């Protein structure tokens, strides 16, 4: 019997094929992930060059941190606002652009184009537009409305950050919804019409169930994405005014890179990881309840 049996050779070829991807994810995903976990158990003073094992102390600090609580509240508002606004707007646009009307191609391009714009450039332009004497208030002035100082009020700053992000990314969800809508078989609508169903009834009982897998997908992408929004906050508000827009990931950045608490920063990123994982898992479980074909 030789060592290189047919079976072994076959296995080796298989391993060699997956090796590049496996090594890549090992080096750039799993090892860093493990290191974050390890850092979170240490006090790492970058300037002094000390690295000291402190066990669960960073996690105890997590529980007692009042600023973290504020940050979680800000994150929840941000995520909720973003998901509700983004998904409903994306679905509305998709339904409108799914009609057989003139000019829909032009509008599809228009609504999708912000997705392709560089994020920081997009945010910087919005920062100028949201100044007290910027074009947003200029436009409001035409209607004799005295616009607020958008980025300096606690509520208006949060609304601004959410809206800027929604307009940037709504096109992506819109395209996904559009593709799903076009996959709904026309005979179903016809049959419903014959049965006397109105437009709303057809939308609720045919469209929604049939595009529910896409709704699940977009809501997962949007929620996970909303927890990772950083550049917009860094450019528009730096977490202010007060701490009203200090979302979790911005707080993590402050702790690690600005305040030099790298160990604690790693602890916050473990928390973020757990939150994202839990939300995704929850949605995945819930899919059985409301996604068609999943029972």
């Amino acid at each position: 019997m030789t060592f290189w049996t047919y079976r072994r050779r076959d296995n080796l070829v298989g391993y060699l094929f997956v090796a590049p991807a496996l090594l890549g994810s090992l080096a750039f995903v799993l090892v860093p992930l493990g290191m974050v976990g390890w850092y979170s158990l240490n006090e790492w003073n970058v300037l002094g060059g000390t690295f000291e094992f402190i066990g669960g102390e960073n996690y105890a600090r997590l529980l007692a941190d009042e600023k973290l609580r504020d940050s979680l509240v800000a994150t929840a508002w941000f995520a909720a606002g973003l998901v509700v606004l983004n998904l409903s707007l994306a679905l509305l646009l998709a339904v409108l652009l799914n009609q057989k009307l003139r000019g829909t191609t032009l509008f599809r391009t228009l609504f999708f184009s912000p997705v392709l714009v560089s994020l920081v450039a997009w945010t910087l332009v919005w920062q100028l537009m949201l100044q007290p004497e910027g074009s947003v208030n200029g436009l409001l002035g035409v209607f004799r409305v005295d616009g607020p100082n958008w980025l300096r009020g606690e509520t208006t700053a949060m609304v601004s950050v959410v809206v800027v992000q929604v307009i940037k990314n709504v096109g992506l969800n819109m395209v996904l919804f559009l593709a799903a809508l076009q996959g709904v078989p026309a005979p179903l609508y016809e049959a419903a019409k014959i049965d006397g169903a109105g437009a709303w009834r057809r939308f609720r009982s045919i469209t929604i169930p049939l595009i529910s897998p896409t709704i699940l997908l977009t809501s997962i992408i949007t929620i996970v994405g909303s927890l990772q929004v950083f550049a917009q906050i860094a450019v528009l508000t730096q977490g202010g005014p007060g701490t009203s827009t200090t979302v979790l990931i911005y707080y993590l950045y402050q702790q690690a890179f600005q305040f030099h608490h790298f160990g604690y920063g790693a602890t916050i990123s473990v928390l973020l990881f757990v939150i994202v994982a839990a939300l995704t898992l929850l949605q995945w479980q819930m899919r059985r309840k409301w996604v068609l074909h999943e029972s």
Partner: protein
Amino acid sequence: MSRLTALIVAALLALTACSGSSAQSGPKSLRMTVWTANEAHLKLLNEIASEYKASHPDITEIKFDSIPADGYTTTLTTQIAGGNAPDLAWILEESAPDFVSSGALAPIKGKVEKADELVPSATKLWEKDGELYAYPFSTSPFGLFVNTDLVKDLPKTWEQAVAASAGKNLVLPDFKYQNWAVLSAIWRGWGANAWSEDGKQCGFSSQEMKDAMTFVHKAIFTDKAIPGPGTTVDFFAGNAAMAVSQISRAGALKDAKFGWTLLPLPQGPKGDYAVIGQAGVGVLKRSKNADAAADFLGFFTNSANSVKLAQFFPPVRQSLLNAETLAKSNPLIKPEQLQSVVIDGISKGVVKPSHQGQEELNQTIRAALDPLWKPDANVGQVLDGVCAKIKPLLERP
């Protein structure tokens, strides 16, 4: 699987072994992080470096690495954390306590030429236990730049300054309703302090601070002298009556299309005072070439080079602090202005507030001061709130 794990561990060990530090012999190259990208600045720095290399053949390269001032300290500490520390670094005054106390910097006193002639008020921030940990290469007093096309009667007091610039803009270019420490250029005139000398007591709730901040609030929202939050006005383009800024900014006025002059900071209720911004250069202890870097720092800051640097960065050597020497390298500023703003400023000035854990204090105070920047703010209440927020940070050992 266990063999695979062993392989990975071995590879990681090999990687870390390579990055272990040991003193290098033979040809060396040095890297200094700076926050200027100004061509004239870099030209001068490179000239000094070339001269040094000519007499030190073992130094093959001295590289000035420009990092944007915005986020400079963050980038620098990230480089250090990533094991890619520079050999030398410019350090902002606000991060001085963190860098000096943490032990990140190597002692340099022995390498500095005539260290005993450095002005004590300027070296204070960079010393620990009698040793010097960075050379204060730039000590730049705050002054009041006045656009004489817009303002005829030069102000002597803050009241006059605000009255004269009502509706015409009195700007604090670096403030942006974020960098609150810049306001110390005003509140020192009221005798207020961010915190006590030992850094343990909060100063924001003091009566002096409340009076000073009430004045600032009124100057913004009632007198409409200081531009409100979110509005940017450029003095150096001629759009403002006055600007509170450091004299190292005078270079921006070289091609100014308007008449201007430079005055010492106006008087507050407590009379004359001066506030300075500072920057030091330190040698990172972890640098493989720390010795060579410290040696270069000694050369970089010797008397001859300090004279050259003085055109951009006011020197702290007693022998150079006279209007005559400074005038040679500062053609834009008149000798009497150099005397009143720079020389008097450096000798009697206090450095902008700085504290251990400065960045966390910065952000906490920034957030706590935000409610102040509204027309109907309750100044006293907001300032008491600042103290409530930063008390635990100041008391931290």
